[in-house]
């Protein structure tokens, strides 16, 4: 796709928003099209992703080369996570894990 954004720096997913992270997590186990993504994210995270939000996030992720669109079957475009997308997701999840562990530790230390 033209107009790829090359500003993807370290932990780029901090800037793209929760919807984009959820889409990447959903695509991590295989390609999906829009409807399958919405259903999977609803089951996975209990989040109702609106179709307008979905397409905005898909376009943004595609510009950042974190996902790619596969040839359409019927009218639907399946999307697949790319190698940089998987690396960015892994890095982001590691970062969340570190923050989460620190938060739990502080809660324990604070006796709350």
């Amino acid at each position, binding site marked *: 796709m*033209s*107009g790829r954004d090359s500003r993807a720096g370290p932990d780029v997913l901090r800037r793209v928003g929760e919807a984009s992270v959820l889409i990447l997590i959903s695509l991590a186990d295989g390609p999906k*099209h*829009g*409807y399958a993504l*919405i259903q999977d994210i609803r089951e996975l995270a209990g989040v109702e992703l*609106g*179709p*307008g*939000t979905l*397409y*905005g996030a898909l*376009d943004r992720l595609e510009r950042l080369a974190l996902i790619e669109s596969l040839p*359409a079957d019927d*009218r*639907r*475009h399946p999307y697949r996570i790319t190698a940089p997308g998987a690396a960015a997701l892994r890095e982001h999840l590691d970062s969340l894990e570190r923050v989460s562990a620190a938060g739990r530790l502080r809660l324990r230390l604070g006796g709350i």
Partner: protein
Amino acid sequence: MDDRRAGRLVGTVLKCYPARWRSRHGHEATELAALLIQDGTPAGSIACSYLAGAAREWLTPRPGRRLSTVACALLAAACALGISAGLLTPTVPARAASTGQPHARAHCRPGPARSVAGVSPATGRSHLIIWTAGHGRFC
């Protein structure tokens, strides 16, 4: 809302997207909306989501889009907001905010001024009210 009306509503909202977006996602977006409506998602909520998406799509700078296009979209949005605000706002505050000389109406031409001493109920302090042609103003 029946399926035909819901489809028309979503179709209308999808026309708000730029042509480039419609040629790429248009058919799929229509089909996705139909599937979501079948699942029980209200058509209005789908339309709102697409409308917000269309606004974001126009306002997000793209490498291939000229700045003037974005500026026009912003200007149109600002005008629409201005017109709405103009319709909703009563005319009296607009006159009060004017920095020019007030246009005196025929029935309130300035007459001879006379002063009356009084106490402001809000502050409890004494003040002078100047009555001009029957209209009292705090000084």
